């Protein structure tokens, strides 16, 4: 038999000014099951809370309703008070008679009656409440960082330096990401490699970080604090422990003419290669698609020259299984290459290059050793046209969003070009200059004012080649949209920043949401920018949207802080307001019919299949089961289940139906 205590608060005069609290207390006392009903000036004060706990003890209460302010305000306070008095905190409910009643209605009978309705509703609910235990989940204090660009590097270092283990997975042979390809970086023009390589080395040396390069995530299962990841270590075709990174094999490999991805196709590399000299780890891989041995069965020159006999032609991919408590997605972005733009020649003209190619050309360690040499004939380009928004802000041929970084790197490119070719003429076609950032606008102005970069406001209509020149047809909308032509030696397209080709598949693998462009979605665009909607998985860098280095690093540190906060607990405690599928005694076991409608509706993939087997091990039925680590208690599944087999603790069918009935059947006897 229920023994409910009702405590009505005056909130100074906040409630009592419009609600007749004494009348409410009297009415509450008459509700069947209510054994104690009082009103008091400030329920949340110490003496108020004291009243609640002593009543629990003295009257053996089985449930408590505090009629006061919003539960969003003081529910934790009163639940704590109940717990201290030995009553399960989930047997305490609040009736909101302040925000939803006394503050919003005039003084009068109707308002008092509404307050009584609210109290009656919550009393009906609390009678159906069940004692719930908070859910405790253990936390594995190792983080998995996917992607070793600057964002992944920063996140790994921050987590490792806060004393936790990190497993960093990078799909390329070396970490470094796009930043390692850059020449100098805006807005300070410091050399990218110079600031990046120390960080890369730190990663290699930090005892808390395990680096799996040339590796990819195979699968991820589990939930916050308790993920299981399988990582595929692709075969490097050599024994990393034996290899000293001497580079002899790379020098001697006869297959030398493979377009280097790292050099954005402008340079060549051998079949056994290290992407760039400062690579971490500085160990080569054999590119099996191009190596003569794998193609024709002959060569093995690298094996012969290797002083440590490290080459392993028959090495197979290896799967490593790890347990981690949190995941940081830092897989970065990609840019569109020139071949998507019909009017700019579908990528046919060798001297129409993209931004990354320009970076490699400008880089002192690049294929031209930092000299401006156009790809077709190696001539120094005298006139260079830069085209901003190439494929960005272009729903017809590219993407509708602004890629954010290209205005800045275009200004940088034009500037670097002028620094290297003093008599050269750089022109930039632009639509708007987006330079919102510390020292960014000043940087662009410097390009214009000090380095003489000519900005022309308009979008280029077409590029074609004639007599070794590129004819760029544009218009200046600030001069009456008059068409104009520039005979350029080289054109640099600031092509759109887009998601990695594999981004969607990876998101599905780890169950995080992504937008229509396959960038990963943050949990809230303003207030939870480094979290995903899946608890325990965080975001860093350009995998969320195109970003520059400062932003990528800031977000990476933010994600690392979130991971460190998670790892500061041994166990996670969560409110048990989650879904459960009913379980009954045999022979029924559960009313669940196994339709799994709930599974398809759950936004968090929290519903699993469970096989119920008899003692002989024979399958009796397959029913739904909620993973308490994943369920967020949204209740979508509950509304969909036709057999009413799944219910949500704290908002159960029984509870909400009791509420509705109590609310509407004023004065009628209890249900």
């Amino acid at each position, binding site marked *: 038999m229920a023994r409910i205590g009702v405590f009505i608060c005056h909130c100074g005069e906040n409630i009592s000014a419009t609600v007749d609290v004494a009348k409410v207390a009297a009415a509450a006392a008459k509700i069947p099951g209510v054994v104690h009903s009082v009103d008091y000036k400030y329920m949340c004060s110490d003496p108020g809370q004291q009243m609640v706990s002593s009543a629990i003890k003295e009257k053996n209460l089985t449930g408590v309703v505090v009629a006061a302010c*919003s*539960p*969003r305000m003081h529910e934790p306070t009163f639940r704590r008070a109940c717990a201290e008095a030995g009553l399960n905190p989930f047997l305490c409910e609040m009736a*909101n008679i*302040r*925000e*939803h*009643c006394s*503050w*919003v*209605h*005039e003084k009068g009978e*109707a*308002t008092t*009656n*509404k307050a009584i*309705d*609210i109290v009656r*509703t919550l009393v009906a609910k609390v009678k159906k409440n069940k004692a719930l235990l908070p859910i405790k989940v253990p936390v594995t204090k190792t983080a998995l960082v996917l992607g070793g660009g600057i964002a992944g590097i920063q996140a790994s270092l921050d987590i490792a330096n806060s004393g936790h283990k990190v497993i960093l997975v990078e799909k390329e042979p070396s970490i470094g990401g796009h930043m390692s390809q850059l020449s100098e970086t805006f807005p300070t023009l410091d050399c990218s490699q110079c600031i990046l390589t120390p960080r890369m080395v730190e990663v290699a040396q930090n005892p808390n970080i395990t680096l799996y390069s040339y590796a990819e995530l195979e699968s991820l299962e589990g939930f916050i604090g308790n993920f299981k990841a399988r990582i595929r270590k692709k075969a490097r075709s050599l024994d990393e422990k034996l290899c000293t990174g001497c580079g002899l094999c790379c020098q001697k490999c006869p297959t030398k003419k493979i377009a280097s991805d790292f050099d954005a196709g402008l340079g060549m590399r051998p079949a056994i290669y290290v992407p760039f000299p400062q690579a971490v780890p500085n160990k080569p891989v054999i590119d099996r698609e191009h190596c003569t041995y794998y193609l024709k069965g002959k060569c093995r020159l690298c094996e012969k020259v290797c002083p440590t006999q490290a080459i392993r032609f028959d090495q197979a991919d290896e799967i490593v299984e790890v347990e981690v408590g949190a995941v940081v997605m830092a897989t970065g972005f990609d840019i569109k290459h020139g071949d998507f733009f019909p009017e700019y020649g579908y990528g046919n003209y060798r001297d129409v290059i993209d931004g990354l190619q320009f970076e490699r050309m400008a880089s002192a360690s690049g294929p031209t050793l930092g000299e401006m040499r156009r790809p077709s004939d190696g001539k120094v380009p005298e006139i260079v046209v830069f085209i901003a928004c190439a494929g960005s802000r272009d729903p017809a041929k590219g993407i509708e969003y602004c890629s954010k970084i290209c205005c800045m790197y275009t200004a940088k490119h034009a500037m670097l070009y002028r620094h290297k070719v003093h008599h050269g003429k750089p022109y930039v076609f632009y639509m708007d200059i987006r330079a919102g950032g510390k020292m960014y606008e000043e940087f662009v102005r410097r390009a214009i004012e000090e380095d003489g970069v000519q900005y022309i406001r308009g979008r280029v209509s077409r590029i074609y080649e004639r007599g070794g020149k590129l004819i760029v047809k544009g218009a200046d909308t600030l001069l009456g949209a008059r068409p104009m032509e520039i005979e350029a030696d080289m054109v640099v397209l600031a092509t759109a920043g887009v998601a990695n080709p594999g981004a969607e598949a990876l998101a599905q693998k780890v169950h995080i*949401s992504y937008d229509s462009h396959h960038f990963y979605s943050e949990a809230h665009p303003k207030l939870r920018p480094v979290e995903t*909607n899946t608890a325990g998985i965080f975001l860093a860098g350009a995998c969320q949207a195109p970003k520059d280095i400062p932003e990528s690093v800031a977000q990476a540190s933010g994600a690392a802080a979130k991971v460190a906060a998670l790892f500061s607990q041994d166990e996670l405690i969560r409110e048990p*307001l989650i879904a459960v599928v009913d379980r009954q005694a045999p022979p029924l076991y559960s009313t669940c019919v196994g339709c799994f409608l709930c599974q398809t*509706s759950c*936004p*968090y993939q929290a519903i699993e299949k469970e096989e119920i087997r008899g003692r002989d091990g024979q399958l009796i039925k397959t029913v739904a089961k909620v993973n308490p680590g994943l369920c*967020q*208690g*949204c*209740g*979508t599944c*509950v*509304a*969909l289940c036709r057999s009413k087999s799944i219910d*949500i603790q*704290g*908002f159960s069918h029984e509870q*909400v*139906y009791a*509420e*509705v*009935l109590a*609310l*509407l*059947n004023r004065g009628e006897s209890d249900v």
Partner: protein
Amino acid sequence: MSDFEPKIVAFVCNWCTYAGADLTGTNRMKYSPRVTIIRFPCTGRIDFMLLLKAFANGADGIIVSGCHPNDYHYSSGNFHARRRWIVFRGLLDFLGIDVRRVQFSWVSAAEGAKWAQLVDATAEQIRQLGPFSGYHKLRGAGVE
């Protein structure tokens, strides 16, 4: 009919509309006392049998309100609610309940004023529609 005072039940989600209604209170905006709120984790939790149950027990009108579609606490539950609402409208019609008796809306945690307007507009609407008298039929139809 002028002194008819409707009974309206509001099913609202905890994260947006409940908080929005709190804000209405904090700002001391006044609205009709004919509406009483029942709190849910999300509008996706609301199954429509519950709404029918409310009608069968004498509710004259119902408000269902949750987060704005893009601003949602649980990534897709309110879309589910929205989709089910379309089916439910048909069902209401079939049962002879005027669909105007159910208000489906979005009120965010910041929209205190919108909540007050929504309540008043609904109360006025229901007042004009008059008391819901079809619940005996509903009970006959097995909803009870």
